[in-house]
């Protein structure tokens, strides 16, 4: 395993090696432990300024990064699309350069355009952390998913992970696919053919449109949110039909192995991707994902924000 971390930015899992991914997960172990201390705060990023720059709305990811930064003693500024000058016509680059002029050290960026974090990382001295860019990547979500699987199952290699739902528009799915394959998992994507095209097989995953055939063989199912805001009507006829064909209903959940983990990146559409009873059931690790997200983001901020960028 790699014994050193050298990246100032985290843009996606596609560019990380298996060693680097494992390095982040092991670092997250140490930061998860901090949450059990009497004083849940360490001075690792004292004096550093982190800017949460969310051009797309997000509550849980932003708050998770914010709390992670607080626990590392960094100072945090939150900027959302509506409060930034982007609405006044300022370009992304100019906004970012202004943030840098204020000596921001770490920029956490959520943006609707794929590649926006890469664009800024190439131009700024500050660390850039991708908090989701378009339908491209959402690396910290995938890292926390990997962490949760590893924590519950003790390993990732050899497990069969089934990702269900809106894969086409999902940056969470893409980052998960890269991470899971690098760590040796078997990945099957399930959903309507409009949202899970065969094209994905080129990445090294399996594609199925029959959920009931796949569920009994899964070690982990990761349910993705149906993204109403990105959907156009032609992708599927309606939510009712989606639930009937692909929703993880109470009945369908009986097909799962007893130790199969049920994951969801949130926010949940109860009764759409997943029944309420299933989401709150014993196999669900949805709230573990939230807790682990904090540890993983502390690790990422510590690693990328803690190295010298000179």
């Amino acid at each position, binding site marked *: 395993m790699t*014994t*050193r*971390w*050298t990246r100032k930015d985290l843009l996606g899992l596609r560019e990380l090696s298996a060693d680097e991914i494992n*390095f982040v997960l*092991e*670092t997250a*172990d*140490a*930061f*998860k*432990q*901090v949450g059990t*201390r*009497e*004083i849940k*705060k*360490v*001075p*690792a*990023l*004292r*004096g*550093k300024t982190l800017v949460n720059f969310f051009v797309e709305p997000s509550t849980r990811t932003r708050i998770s990064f914010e709390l992670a930064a607080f626990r*590392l003693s960094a100072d945090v500024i939150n900027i959302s699309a509506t409060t930034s000058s982007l609405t006044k016509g300022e370009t992304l680059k100019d906004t970012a350069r202004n943030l840098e002029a204020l000596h921001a*050290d770490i920029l956490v960026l959520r943006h609707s355009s794929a590649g926006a974090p890469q664009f800024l990382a190439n131009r700024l001295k500050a660390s850039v952390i991708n908090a989701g860019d378009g339908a491209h990547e959402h690396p910290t979500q995938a890292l926390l998913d990997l962490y949760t699987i590893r924590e519950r199952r003790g390993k990732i290699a050899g497990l069969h992970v089934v990702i269900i739902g809106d894969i086409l528009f999902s940056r969470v799915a893409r980052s998960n696919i890269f991470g899971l394959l690098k760590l040796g998992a078997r990945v099957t994507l399930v959903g309507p053919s409009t949202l899970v095209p065969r094209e994905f097989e080129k990445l090294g995953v399996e594609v199925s449109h029959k959920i009931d055939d796949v569920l009994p063989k899964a070690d982990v199912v990761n349910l993705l949110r149906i993204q109403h805001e990105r959907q156009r009507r032609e992708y599927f006829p309606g939510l009712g039909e989606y639930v009937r064909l692909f929703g993880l209903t109470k009945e369908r959940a009986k097909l799962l192995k007893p130790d199969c983990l049920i994951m969801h990146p949130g926010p949940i559409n109860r009764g759409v991707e997943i029944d309420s009873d299933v989401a709150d059931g014993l196999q669900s690790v949805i709230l573990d994902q939230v807790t682990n997200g904090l540890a993983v983001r502390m*690790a990422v901020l*510590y*690693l990328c*924000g*803690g*190295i*010298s*960028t*000179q």
Partner: protein
Amino acid sequence: MKQTKQNPQAAVPIMDAEAIRRALRRIAHEIIERNPPLEKLVLAGIPSRGVEIARRIAAFIHEIEKIDVETGVIDVAMHRDDVGKRPELPLVHASKLPLPLEERTIIIVDDVLYTGRTVRAAMDAINSFGRPARIQLAVLIDRGHRELPIRPDYVGKNLPTATREQIQVRLQETDNEADAVWLGREI
């Protein structure tokens, strides 16, 4: 302080396995003498060699007094004072201490004491877990050159050095080499 690896051919042996064994055994006796009752004691090692040295001292205490003292791990990475100054970062280990710390005596254990900055960070880390009754320091080698007002309570060997010299501690369990302490003449 972690020392970088160099060619042992250019280094002078300072301690062999037997000398290390005797030094740690003597430290165990000193700890027993100064810290009754031993039930309140925690030997907390700084990864990775400090953890192994703490384990060995605990084993000697068990041999001498038939008491199992508690051990722990303190990783200081999150508490260092050089944030943003290093081009690459080593792996952080999870810290582990028995709780609550109140009324306990924590002995920080490390292989080499040099500037004292690692020990300062370790004390800071311990304080985030609670408020121990007292904190002491045990090291295998004290090589001098302190940059902070810190002194060890238990020392395996005092070894005056020049700053350009290097001390390398090798332990079977952490380095897969025979136990030894080397003084490197060149950097």
